[in-house]
């Protein structure tokens, strides 16, 4: 479960996220959409502890991210938009490393490393150093490392960057599986079809504020106002005032 209450982040005079409030219950797949520079990544970075909010509150699975950061972080897995790994470790070593940071015991960790390697079909190259990986391979290793400790919540920033169609399918299936098993998922994406396919609810952020928040079913009602296309809804909602 994720609760964002009046969340604001300012960099000097520039307000990147302005008074955002959201509630995502357990088991929900939430899609977070918005144009470039709207505030998606900043919101996610605040949720995961990479940025400190200027004001507001974030509670994940009952833990305040600012006041109980270790407890909150233990309950979620994060997949960043740029899958930076430690170049000198192999993919398998990186997943072990991440499991260790989540304080997993060795036997449990071994089982789960094998599980996520199978889930994301990484076996054929997982023992090479990550500096030799393609963007897609890195992205899949990041997914595996986020799933290894069986998180209650998964936070994803642009999951499809650099993925080939087969990898994209593997990632989508793995996300569906996690949601099916009861994890709540917060996913920012630019791929509208993917949001439409996977998400139970969609929020759109533009110019640092939430401008749309509704279920997938209700979204269809909005679509009929335009040409039945989510892209048209998105473009209309996020269009520049002078357009």
């Amino acid at each position, binding site marked *: 479960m994720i609760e964002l209450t009046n969340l604001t982040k300012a960099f000097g005079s520039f307000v990147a996220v302005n008074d955002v409030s959201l509630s995502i219950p357990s088991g929900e797949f939430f899609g977070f959409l918005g144009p470039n520079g709207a505030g998606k990544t900043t919101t996610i970075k605040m949720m995961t502890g990479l940025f400190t909010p200027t004001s507001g509150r974030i509670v994940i699975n009952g833990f305040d991210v600012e006041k109980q*950061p270790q407890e909150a972080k233990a309950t979620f897995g994060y997949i960043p938009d740029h899958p930076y790994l430690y170049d*000198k470790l192999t993919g398998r070593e990186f997943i072990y490393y991440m499991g260790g940071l989540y304080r997993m015991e*060795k036997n449990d960790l071994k089982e789960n490393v094998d599980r996520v390697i199978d889930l994301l079909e990484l076996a054929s190259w997982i023992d090479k150093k990550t500096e030799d990986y393609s963007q897609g391979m890195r992205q899949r290793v990041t997914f595996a490392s986020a799933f290894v400790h069986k998180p209650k919540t998964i936070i994803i920033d642009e999951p499809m960057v650099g993925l080939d169609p087969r990898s994209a399918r593997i990632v989508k299936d793995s996300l569906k599986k996690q949601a099916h098993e009861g994890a709540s998922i917060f996913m920012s994406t630019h791929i509208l079809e993917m949001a439409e396919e996977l998400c139970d609810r969609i929020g759109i952020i533009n110019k640092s504020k939430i401008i749309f928040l509704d279920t997938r079913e209700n979204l269809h009602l909005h679509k009929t106002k335009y040409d039945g296309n989510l892209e048209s809804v998105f473009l209309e909602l996020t269009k520049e005032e002078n357009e």
Partner: protein
Amino acid sequence: MTFLHILWFKNIMFWKVSTKRDVGMVIRNLGSFIVFGSFAIGAFYFSNFITAYLLENVRIGLFLFHRFIGMLLFVFFITINLGNMVVSFSTLYRTPEVDFLLTSPVSYLNIFVIKFLDNFFYSSGTLFMVGFSLLLGYGFYFNLPWHFYILMMFGVLIPFMFLAACIAVIVLLLLMKLASVVNFRLLVGGIVLFYIAQIYFYFQVSSPVNMVREVMKYYPYVDLYFGTLDPTAVKVLPNFWVSEIMYFYVTKNFTAVTGYTSLLVLSTLGLFIFTLAIADGIFYSTWITSLSIKSLTVKSLQLKNSIFSFGRPSFFSPQVEVMLKKEFWQFIREPSQWIHFAVMMALLLIFLSSVSTLNIKLQTPELKAVVYLVVFIFNIFLINSLALRFGFPMMSLEGSAFWTIRSTPITAAKVYWIKFAIVVIFLVALSIIISWLSNIPYLYMQKVTGEQPWIYSFIEPSDTVKILSYFSMIVTPLITITLVSLNFGLGSVYSNFIEKNPIRIASSQGATMTFLLSVVYLVFLLALYYFPATMLFTAEMKDLQPDWHMLRIVFFAICIPSAAIIAISHVVGLHSLKRDY
């Protein structure tokens, strides 16, 4: 034209970064200015004082004084040479910029020259400043005219350093060429041995002890020129030419000055042209070779079932275990880390082997104190170099993967302390060994007992010398903790998660400032240590009681500022990790 075009844009990038306007940057620049300025002034006074002290108090004479400068310049030359070689490996063969430029219509030679110059000026800026300050201190003592400084900077110091860089890059290019047919690690081992042998033979051939003995036979006429004592092999070395230029400038033999300066400048120019010719022929092919070296390293350094394997159980907690294992693999699989470490350890070994067998036969307590302090400060300087090179970049080496720390249930402070512990435990252990080895000549003095000179017996050292040795062995680890804390803490403050090259991180502006701060601390130690060292050697020679009160004062005078530096370094280092990532 392409060359100038690229230089122009590099210049724009440099100025955009340097003149970025925010409060933090202004404070940092102001801090840097104050530290650099203070250091320059400190270096000036230090050089001026040492020159006066050696020539007026110790009275070693102009010839010996310049020969010692020559020996220091040899070490300086080798340091620049090795430093440039390691940095050039990273900048020429391991940077995305070269990868990118190779895909553009820029000639291989242009790419080489751009990276070579970038490399040289990036890592030499502080050395120029330090060199100039030292020259000023030296020149002021001798009352030298303004043209001395112009000549020394542009006609001597820059060509001297550039010559070292040219030799470094020629050796590197040839090494990379050979790497296509010979195992790379074997070559690295060979080159390390070659440098060790060079240093060993240099000090064997130009033995400072013999030189002092021979020159002192002519006392008090020690300002005269004793060139016949110089071994022929030493005369072809650039450090010898520089010391000759300085000696002849002071003694106003301008014909000799012109001769040696021309020799230095022409040699540098010739070697630069030779470097370009070699680079034009083999740079691209060696870059291709470097790609296969990368895959060689991957296969051979897996060590699957070692205690460092991630799958193996450990008695540490899971977070500590994975952090330690990650640090180990990052270090062992990064050539610029382990090669540099091996080279520094080899140099340390040579230094210690010669220091521990030093035969101290000096007659005055002042000279004994000077020798003792030189060895003591050199030990600390070595520790500081290791702390700067390997401790300063440690937080930065988390790189773009730092998100893994900030988004998982491990505190950044825990990561900080684990990394600090790795460096401090190793360096404290090393400092104890170094301190003990360098005190061997004082604790285990030998004398020839029989007719045969190879039969020795140990002399029981006096209590006063024992006190000084034990004092150093207690104080050195404390100083090590201080220096590691300073380097580590400020390494966190100046952390750069974009730069992947640890050598560039360790020679960045932040690192230079940290180095200068630690040198200020070293000078402070030297000044403090001078008094007990002289007092204890005087007590030993004149059979007096040591002044315990002075020892206690010195001990606390070292402890209190050290504790303050440790505390401040960690507070600012830990605080800096709270920044937005």
